[in-house]
């Protein structure tokens, strides 16, 4: 076994990867989450709790069954899948809300970002709970676990 060759293969692959990322036009911004796009406003869990206490409207972008099982207190379901169908159900509440926060399952979950962008297209500014429900739970914040129909 020639360990120099072994290292060369690894180093060559890594170098090609960085070069492709820099010059191909398909690259990603390495220093931030790939889910974040221009215009996305992220809010950390403790700050989101402060917004909740001030009456912010929370929207659950996960599939509706997840919302039925548990949710951030007072959150309404607005799942990414079926957004167009669910939107009229919450539209009136959105118009009355001063602050809107969208969340999903965290860890690579893109649903909250997508729902927030769709809301923005409809004229509603919505912040995104950074890392979603897991971050909320990690911050020892409460979930409403009463089953909903």
């Amino acid at each position, binding site marked *: 076994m020639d360990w120099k060759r072994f290292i060369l293969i690894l180093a060559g692959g890594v170098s090609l990867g960085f070069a*492709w990322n820099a010059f191909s036009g398909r690259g*990603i911004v390495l*220093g931030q*989450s790939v889910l974040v796009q221009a215009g996305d406003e992220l809010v950390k869990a403790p700050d989101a709790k402060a917004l909740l206490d001030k009456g912010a409207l929370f929207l659950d972008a996960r599939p509706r069954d997840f919302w039925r099982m548990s949710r951030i207190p007072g959150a309404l379901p607005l799942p990414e899948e079926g957004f167009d169908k669910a939107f009229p159900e919450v539209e009136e509440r959105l118009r009355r809300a001063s602050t809107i926060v969208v969340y999903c399952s965290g860890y690579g979950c893109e649903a909250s970002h997508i729902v927030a962008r769709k809301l923005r297209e409809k004229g509603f500014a919505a912040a995104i709970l950074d890392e979603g429900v897991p971050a909320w739970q990690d911050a020892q914040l409460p979930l409403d676990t009463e089953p909903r129909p």
Partner: protein
Amino acid sequence: MTRLANPRVQLALRLLLGAFFVYASLDKIASPAGFAKIVYQWQVAGPVPSNLVAATLPWVELLAGLLLIVGVWRREAALVIALLLVVFLGAAASVLARGIDVQNCGCVSVAKEAVESAWPPAWARGVGWFLVVRNLLMLAGALAIAFVRRAPAEAAGRQRAMEQAGFTPAGGTGA
């Protein structure tokens, strides 16, 4: 062991592994953002390390796969593949142990449509026991290429062919 040392078996292993890893790298190279999202969903690394993996890993796969196919630095390329597979297996074990539902492992395709399509079936594209068994088999193949020496019969055959062609080994006693 002797079967694994057979040159034809070694060639087949090289071509199969090489082709798989070249094929597996292409969609990831074409869509680094899609692959980065999937790496992040494994919950093994944060967003920034996931980006670094997404940007570089497919190129290591491509390079090692191509070297295996053409037969250049084949043992070292096989060891690189083996290293990748050990990392993948460790990550899959972590995902399974924590009960995380990763619907598309990102092994071959990173397209969101891959999750919604009927083929391949969910058990073949997610992180589950199929992935673990497949990776274990490929790891065995990669280690066989890296560490099993070619059969002595092949060397003897080469020597006979050289002698028939009129060559004699250096220091030999050929008349």
